């Protein structure tokens, strides 16, 4: 009987001790988990274009975290949907084309400066402050900062903003994916040809 009592007491003491250690550790080394909204926001392409129906990427990230569908981002395309599905453990959905078509062609805004009347409407519309100019003076787009969101096109009263395609440069050019089984590569590397 005493043996059992000792054993029980010992176990209880150990349980209390470990419980205390664990409790202390969980307080001391508490990890503030990265809030899910931040993680979603990190995946979204940050064009701030509003095509999802939200005023910016962050509001959409918040909406996704609250259960909204994650397939409403055309600039992100399939890849963003895939990454969001991985993150959230949700099903991979096809892109909802209600919100615009995904296109791989990168575009940036270009202001035809001769026609600009300096109304500053596009400056107010730009979500990333990528347009410089002042009232009644010509405006121009900082190309490197433009996300290609289109939001400045609509407010322009003289329609002097075009979305122009970004041409590949030597810095951004990359090899294309080989055409696959059954085809010889179009732009080949000479390699395998030594008999």
């Amino acid at each position: 009987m005493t043996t059992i009592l000792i054993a029980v007491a010992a176990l209880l003491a150990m349980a209390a001790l470990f419980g205390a250690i664990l409790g202390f550790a969980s307080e001391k080394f508490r990890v503030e988990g990265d809030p899910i909204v931040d993680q979603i926001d990190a995946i979204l392409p940050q064009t701030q274009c509003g095509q999802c129906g939200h005023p910016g990427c962050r509001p959409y990230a918040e909406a996704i975290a609250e259960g909204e569908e994650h397939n409403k981002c055309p600039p992100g395309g399939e890849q963003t949907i895939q990454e969001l599905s991985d993150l959230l453990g949700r099903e991979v959905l096809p892109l909802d084309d209600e919100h615009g078509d995904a296109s791989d062609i990168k575009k940036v805004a270009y202001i035809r400066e001769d026609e600009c009347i300096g109304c500053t409407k596009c400056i107010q519309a730009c979500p990333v402050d990528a347009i410089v100019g002042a009232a009644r003076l010509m405006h121009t787009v900082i190309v490197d900062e433009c996300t290609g969101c289109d939001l400045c096109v609509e407010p322009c009263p003289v329609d002097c903003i075009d979305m122009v395609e970004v041409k590949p440069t030597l810095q951004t050019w990359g090899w294309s994916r080989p055409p696959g089984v059954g085809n010889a590569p179009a732009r080949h590397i000479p390699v395998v040809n030594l008999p």
Partner: protein
Amino acid sequence: MSLLSLFRPARTESGRKLHDFHGGIHPPQRKTLSSEAPIRPGPLSATLVLPLNMHLGAPALPCVQVGDRVLKGQILAEASGPVSAPVHAPTSGVVRAIEPRPIQHPSGLDALCVVLDSDGEDRWTALTPCPDYRDMPRAELVARIRDAGIAGLGGAGFPTAVKVNVRDSQRIEQLIINAVECEPYITADDRLMRERAEGVIAGIQVLQHLVQPMETLVGIEDNKPEAIAAMRAAAAGTGIEIVTVPTKYPSGGEKQLIRVLTGKEVRSGGLPADVGVVCHNTGTAWALHRLVTTGEPLISRITTLTGTAFAEPGNVEVLIGTPVADLLAFGGVPQPHTGRLIMGGPMMGFSIENPLAPVVKTTNCIIAAPLSELPEPEPEQPCIRCGACAEVCPADLLPQQLYWYSKASEFDRAQHYNLMDCIECGACAYVCPSHIPLVQYYRYAKGAIRQQAAEHQKADRARERFEARTARIEREKAEKEAKRQARLEANRQKSSPATSVAAATPAADPVADLKKAVGEASSAYKAAVKIAKEAEEQGADNAADLRAEADQLKARADELKIALRDAKANAPAAVAPTAQAAPADPVADLKKAVGEASSAYKAAVKAAKEAEEQGADNAADLRAEADQLKARADELKIALRDAKASAPAPTRPAPASPAPAAPPAVSLSTAPESPTAQANAEDEASAEAERAKRAQRMKALKTAFNMSHKQWKEASAALERAERDGLPDVDTHRARVDKLKKKADLAKAQLNELVEAAKADMKASTGTDLKTLKLQAARAESTVREKTAALATAREAGDEERINVLQQELAAAEQQALETARTLKQAVAEQGLSDGDDA
């Protein structure tokens, strides 16, 4: 294989232990095609094209103008950063253009080039040799190398000045001169060493002087016995060791050669300098020798012209910028050349599409071969997982895994398998029995990864900018609000400084007492209700009595409440500004009453239901009672709503009244709790929240409308195009247009609804609508204008008294105009009605 060689390492004649690297292949050499003819001077082209980015790093910046006459060796473009190299004129002539031209790039894209028309005189500019470089300060010698535009001639084109400028903290153990030249066909270094070994050794000594290594090794493959002999002879007595390495592709790779000669491994992503090694190419050593002895910048290099299409293959000392077409003609390639044209070696080079592309600092070989010699690649077959690629990979990677992941665009996994350590040597593709263009897959994946990284960086920046902008807008709004509040407060203080202080204290006490009484009464009532309910549930006889008692209590509580409200209404009516100091809560009371009524109703319903279930007689009575309660609750709700609607925004003075007087009292005769509408903090907060919500919703709707409107416009354009061109899919376009139009209309309608609601709300809260407000603002403005004009006239007339009067009047009018304008603006802003929608 590699494991065995670790146990039986090869040794050179000097006793140096050689190591081996994993994998490697032995492709046919084909070096004798070009290795037997001596180096010839290249042709002098009529036009030279000098790309500004022929080295690794930032492109050079042109420093000459179109039309400038330049001499051979004169600088054309300056280095534009720490890792950059200048470009010099390879011959004398006139700068014809600085424009984009096709260059030596697999993309076939154009790049900015300086185009130089040769005048045929080949006149040198003044050169300053420095044979006494050992006495020069180190920094000066490095600057000379930089100014001479010398870049690694092996293939990467890394600026030599950066590479030789080792930090003092770095101890360089080995200086390795890469003379391996392991790729088939190429013999440029071979010929250079055979013919100019002395110069190469002199150049190596310059490197030795700069790097101060413990030992200097020259690695040469054992298939170049003449070069080895020549170099040994030249290096005798200099302490430079010529090491023969076994022929194996790609032992000329930097990391592979370091491994072979020293046994050291350069870690993934690291530099050779991390393990105390610096690698340079033979050609670079020669260029350094030319620099110190003659002062020549890098304007020419030795390039191998090879392939059976050349009638006279061999090595030529070609001016940088010479178009490949001129070299083909020089080497006797029949025109037009229909076979393959490759710049670089057959393993790591690339096909060039435009023979006008120029030779650059890194061009070590031009192969022109008929298709019989270098046939077009065979079609790709499925991977049979033979693993041959993994056996030959010199970087110890798993090419098959990399292939799967690259093909499936699973780039993070490819990176996990160290794709970035691939040196693109092509050994895997060479041995692949399925003719899979593996290297192209890797290059594709590497490019995509780089692009993704760039996009990610851009997205981060966009996020930062977006957040900064949002924060700025918020801050501006808050500042405006704070200013407005401060002004409002100042006005209030001015208008009733005495009363606000005097009235605040006495008003507080009776109200507090009353409140307490109300609280007690209502809790007594609640207790009574509870008892009554219990009694009813138990079907007790005295349930009705208890209920009556509860009702009595309720009536008393109500009476007290009315008294309280009156007290409150009186207090703030006298001194409006103190309303917030003694918060009287008619709306809150009303709310509470509604809550009580509805809970009473619910309880009654429950009791009725139970009674019905038990088949009690009084079920019908209970039901009726419940209905009554319900009606009462509804009444109260309506009263509450009205009270809320008629409560003015407390922070804003009614625009029509000059001083903040008592807000309009609304009496609701139907409800016993008819409150005087006095705004309170809670109500204000909820209204505020509602407004904010609406503003947000309005913004989202606006975005949605704009977006769908744009899409509709685009779709309409597409439809027009389709109709014009008579395309078959007109109907789908039309359907899309209709759909988008509908969507846009819907969004607009919703938006309008919200705007209307906001306007109505504003009317309710300010007592006026937008139009009136605007009118007032305009009137005030015009008054100010009138007064100003009158003042001007009075000034001209010199009427002192009138001027004084007018000045006072003007000040008052200005004040009022300011006030009305502010009210209007705030009303608009509060309701989230921006200019575009109400106009």
